[in-house]
C-alpha cells in the first residue's frame, strides 16, 4: 500500500429507489465513524454529472485515495465510477461498490431492517476498499476477422455489413445452403414482399464477397481463446461432391435410385427429393450434396452395379472418397446467429396434428402457397388422387406460445402477423374459401402491422376470440371445438383445413453453442443478452454477440436490425484493433510458491505454467501466470496450499475483512 487510506463514502438516494427503504442520513452518519473514512456524502443521483463532480473534487481537495459508492449493483455502474476515479486522478481500481439497491432497498420491506443491512454492506465495502491496490489494464491486439455462426437472414446481414466495412468474415452454416428459415417463406408480412426476391440477392452476395469465406454444410467444433483472439476449428463435412466441378445441372438427382423418395426438409417433408440433392432451387452455393443418411451407396456400400449419380455426372464431380476437412483460423469476435426451431405441434395432441393430414402448421402452409413448394403454389391438401382444395379454413393461434402447459410462457411475436398474411394468401388463391382465425389476443405492434390486420379483416377473414380445446373428425370434416369468449357461445365449427400457428422455440441443439462460448440462457431458454435493454446484442462473454432469433423470437425487420447491431458491436472491436483485458487477474508470490503445480492443473485456460528460477543459488520451479491468458476466475487461488497465488482485487486479505465485518455485525 502506498499510503494511509483516506476513504470517501458516497451514498446515493437513487431518486427514491434507495431512500424510500433505506434511511440515507442514518447510513451517512454511520459511515462517518468507520475506520479511515475521511469524507461521507449523500446525493440524489451519484451517477449524474454533479454526483461524479462531488467525487472528483473530494479526491482533489480532500486527498482521498479510496472511494466507496453505496448505490446500485457494480454490474450496473462500476465502470461509470471507475472512470470518475480516473478522471479525478485516482487509479480506477481503488473503488468498491456497496450494492444497496438491487440487493437491499428493492428486496426488503422493513425500513429498519433495510437500513441495518445497508450499514453492513457499506461497512464490508469500507473494509475491503482500504486494502485494494492500484491495477493497470493491458491491451491486446484484435484479430481483424469475425466468425458468424448461422447463415440465415441474421447471419447473412451481419456478414455483409462487416465484410463491407473491410474485415474478414468466416460465415459457417450447418446445412448445405445459406438462407435459413426465411428462404422457406413465400411472402413476408405486412408488405407481402416475396421472401425469395428480397433474400436471394443477399444470399448470392455472401457467396461472392471477397471478404467472406463461406463454409456451408460445416460445423463449428471448437472455440478457444478470448476476446480479440479466438481460435476456431470448423469441420467441413464431406458433400461427396467436388464443389469446383459441380455445375449444378441436376442430372445426378434425376438419376438417383431414391429420386422422389426422400422427404425434403425444405418443403417441411411434404415434397420429396433424391439422396443427392440441392435443398431448393435458389440454394447458395448451387452445389449438390449427398445425404449420407439416405444414400444407398454410403449406407449399404452398394448402389446397383455402380451409383447412378456417378454415371450421370458428366463433370465427374461426385467423389465418394471425399473426407471431412478441418479448417482452423483465428478471429477477434464471434456473432451467434443460429436462429430457432418451429414448435413441434405434436406436443399439443388435442389438435390432432399427427393424426389428421388436414391439420398442418403455418410453415407447411407457407410451403404449399409457395411457387417453389411441393404443389407449385396450389393449396392442395393430402397426397395423390385424394388431394383436395379446402373450402372452410380455420387458423389457430398461439400454438406452443403463451402456453405454460408446454413450457413456453413467452409470445412468439410473429404468429399473429404470419397468420394474417397466410389468411390473406388463402383468400387470394381460393376466393371461395371461408377463412376464420381463432385467437386469444391479436398483437399487431409493428410498423404497418395494425394496418395489415385491418386490411385482412376487411377482406373477409373472420376473427373469433377463443382458444380451441379439441379437434376431432366428424365424417369428412374436422370439428374445431371452441368457445367464442366474446359472446360466451360454445361452437363446433366444421372445417376442411386447420392451420396451427406454431410458435418459435430455442433450437434443440442450443446447448452446443453454450458449451462452445459459455453463453447463458434466459428463462425461456433462448440465449441471454448482457442487458435486456442497454446491451441487447452483447453476451457475458466479451467479444461474442447475438443476432436474430437465437436471442428470442423476432420478425424479419427486427432480426435485420439486431444483426446490424451485432455487426456494429463487432466492428467497434475490429476497427479499433485493440481491446483492454481484465486487470483483476492472478499473480504468484514466487518467494513462497513451492512449485507443486496444483494451480497449473486447476486453470481452465492453461494460463499458468511452472518455470525454473534461481532462488538464492538454488534452481527451483515456481508457478507463473500468463497475463494475456488469465481470465480472472480465481479458481487457482482457492486451490493453492500456501496462499502464494492470489487474484488482484479478490485477494484473501481483501476478502477476509469483508467476512469479518459481515460475521460480527448483527
Amino acid at each position, binding site marked *: 500500500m502506498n499510503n494511509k487510506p483516506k476513504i470517501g463514502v458516497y451514498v446515493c438516494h437513487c431518486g427514491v429507489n434507495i431512500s424510500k427503504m433505506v434511511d440515507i442520513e442514518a447510513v451517512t452518519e454511520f459511515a462517518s465513524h468507520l475506520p479511515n473514512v475521511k469524507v461521507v456524502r449523500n446525493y440524489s443521483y451519484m451517477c449524474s454529472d454533479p454526483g461524479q463532480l462531488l467525487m472528483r473534487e473530494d479526491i482533489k481537495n480532500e486527498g482521498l485515495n479510496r472511494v466507496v459508492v453505496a448505490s446500485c449493483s457494480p454490474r450496473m455502474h462500476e465502470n461509470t465510477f471507475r472512470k470518475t476515479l480516473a478522471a479525478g486522478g485516482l487509479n480506477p481500481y481503488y473503488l468498491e461498490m456497496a450494492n444497496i439497491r438491487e440487493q437491499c432497498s428493492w428486496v426488503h420491506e422493513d425500513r429498519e431492517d433495510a437500513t441495518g*443491512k445497508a450499514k453492513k454492506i457499506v461497512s464490508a465495502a469500507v473494509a475491503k476498499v482500504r486494502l485494494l491496490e492500484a491495477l493497470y489494464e493491458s491491451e491486446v491486439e484484435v484479430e481483424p476477422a469475425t466468425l458468424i455462426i448461422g447463415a440465415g437472414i441474421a447471419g447473412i446481414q451481419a456478414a455483409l455489413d462487416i465484410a463491407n466495412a473491410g474485415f474478414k468474415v468466416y460465415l459457417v452454416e450447418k446445412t448445405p445452403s445459406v438462407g435459413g428459415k426465411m428462404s422457406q417463406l413465400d411472402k413476408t408480412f405486412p408488405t407481402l414482399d416475396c421472401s425469395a426476391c428480397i433474400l436471394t440477392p443477399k444470399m448470392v452476395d455472401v457467396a461472392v464477397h471477397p471478404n467472406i469465406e463461406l463454409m456451408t454444410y460445416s460445423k463449428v467444433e471448437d472455440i478457444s481463446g478470448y476476446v480479440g483472439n479466438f481460435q476456431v476449428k470448423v469441420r467441413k463435412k464431406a458433400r461427396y461432391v467436388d464443389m469446383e466441378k459441380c455445375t449444378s445441372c441436376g442430372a445426378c438427382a434425376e438419376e438417383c435410385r431414391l429420386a422422389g423418395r426422400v422427404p425434403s426438409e425444405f418443403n417441411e417433408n411434404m415434397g420429396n427429393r433424391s439422396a443427392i440433392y440441392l435443398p431448393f432451387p435458389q440454394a447458395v452455393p448451387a452445389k449438390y450434396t449427398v445425404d449420407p443418411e439416405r444414400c444407398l451407396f454410403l449406407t449399404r456400400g452398394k448402389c446397383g452395379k455402380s451409383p447412378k449419380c456417378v454415371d450421370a455426372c458428366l463433370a465427374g464431380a461426385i467423389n465418394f472418397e471425399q473426407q471431412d476437412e478441418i479448417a482452423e483460423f483465428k478471429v477477434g469476435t464471434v456473432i451467434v446467429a443460429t436462429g430457432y426451431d418451429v414448435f413441434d405441434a405434436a406436443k399439443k395432441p388435442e389438435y390432432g396434428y399427427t393424426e389428421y393430414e388436414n391439420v398442418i402448421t403455418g410453415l407447411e402452409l407457407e410451403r404449399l402457397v409457395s411457387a417453389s413448394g411441393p404443389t407449385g403454389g396450389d393449396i392442395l391438401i393430402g397426397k395423390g388422387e385424394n388431394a383436395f382444395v379446402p373450402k372452410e379454413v380455420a387458423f389457430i393461434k398461439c400454438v406452443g406460445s403463451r402456453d405454460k402447459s408446454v413450457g413456453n410462457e413467452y409470445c412468439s411475436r410473429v404468429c399473429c402477423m404470419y397468420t394474417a398474411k397466410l389468411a390473406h394468401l388463402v383468400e387470394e388463391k381460393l376466393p371461395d374459401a371461408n377463412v376464420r382465425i381463432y385467437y386469444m389476443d391479436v398483437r399487431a405492434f409493428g410498423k404497418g402491422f395494425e394496418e395489415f390486420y385491418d386490411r385482412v379483416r376487411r377482406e373477409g377473414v373472420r376473427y373469433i376470440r377463443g382458444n380451441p380445446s379439441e379437434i376431432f373428425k366428424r365424417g369428412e370434416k374436422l370439428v374445431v371445438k371452441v368457445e367464442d369468449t366474446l359472446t360466451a357461445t360454445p361452437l363446433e365449427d366444421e372445417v376442411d383445413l386447420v392451420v396451427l400457428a406454431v410458435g418459435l422455440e430455442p433450437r434443440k441443439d442450443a446447448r452446443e453453442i453454450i458449451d462452445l462460448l459459455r453463453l447463458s440462457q434466459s428463462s425461456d431458454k433462448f440465449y441471454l443478452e448482457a442487458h435486456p435493454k442497454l446491451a441487447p446484442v452483447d453476451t457475458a462473454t466479451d467479444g461474442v454477440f447475438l443476432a436474430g432469433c437465437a436471442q428470442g423470437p423476432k420478425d424479419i425487420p427486427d432480426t435485420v436490425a439486431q444483426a446490424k447491431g451485432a455487426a456494429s458491436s463487432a466492428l467497434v472491436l475490429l476497427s479499433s484493433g485493440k481491446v483492454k483485458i481484465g486487470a483483476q487477474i492472478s499473480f504468484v508470490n514466487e518467494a513462497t510458491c513451492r512449485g507443486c503445480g496444483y494451480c497449473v492443473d486447476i486453470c481452465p485456460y492453461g494460463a499458468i505454467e511452472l518455470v525454473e528460477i534461481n532462488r538464492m543459488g538454488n534452481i527451483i520451479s515456481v508457478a507463473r501466470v500468463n497475463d494475456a491468458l488469465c481470465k480472472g476466475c480465481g479458481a487457482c*487461488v*482457492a486451490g493453492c496450499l500456501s496462499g502464494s497465488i492470489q487474484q488482484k482485487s479478490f485477494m484473501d486479505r481483501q476478502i477476509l475483512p469483508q467476512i469479518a465485518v459481515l460475521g460480527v455485525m448483527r
Partner: protein
Amino acid sequence: MSEQFQPNVVAFLCNWCSYAGADLAGTSRIKYPHNLNVIRVMCSGRVNPLFVINALQQGADGVLVSGCHPGDCHYMEGNFYARRRFSLMNELLEYVGVEPGRFNMSWVSASEGAKWKDVVAGVVEKAKEAGPFDQFRRNKINW
C-alpha cells in the same frame, strides 16, 4: 430468546450467474429476508473453503456458496471445483459437529431472480432452525 432469533448468513456469489440473479430479483422487486449478506467473487471456484470456516468463526450462523449451474460456468470449470471442494467441506463440517443446514450450496443463473428468493428464504429458514452458532466464535472485528 424473547424475540424470534434473527440469523446472520454470509453468502459468496459468483459475479456472472448468482450475483446477476440476485440483482435480477432486485430489479423485479421480489422480496426476501434481510438476514443474508453477499460477498461478490468472480467465480464460485474462487471461494476458499477457509472462507466458510472463517465466516462461522466470525459470527455467521449460516453460509451459502452460490454459482452458475453445473456446465454453465462462465469460466468453464470453476463451479465444478466449487462443487467438489464443498461436498468434501460438508462432510468435514458434519464431522466437527456443525449442524447440517448451516452450510449450503446453490446454483442460481442470471435469469433466476425468483429462484434466488427461494434460496435465500430456505437458507435463512435453515439457519433459524439451527439457532445461533457460537462454537467457533471469536468476537472481534479483525479490521
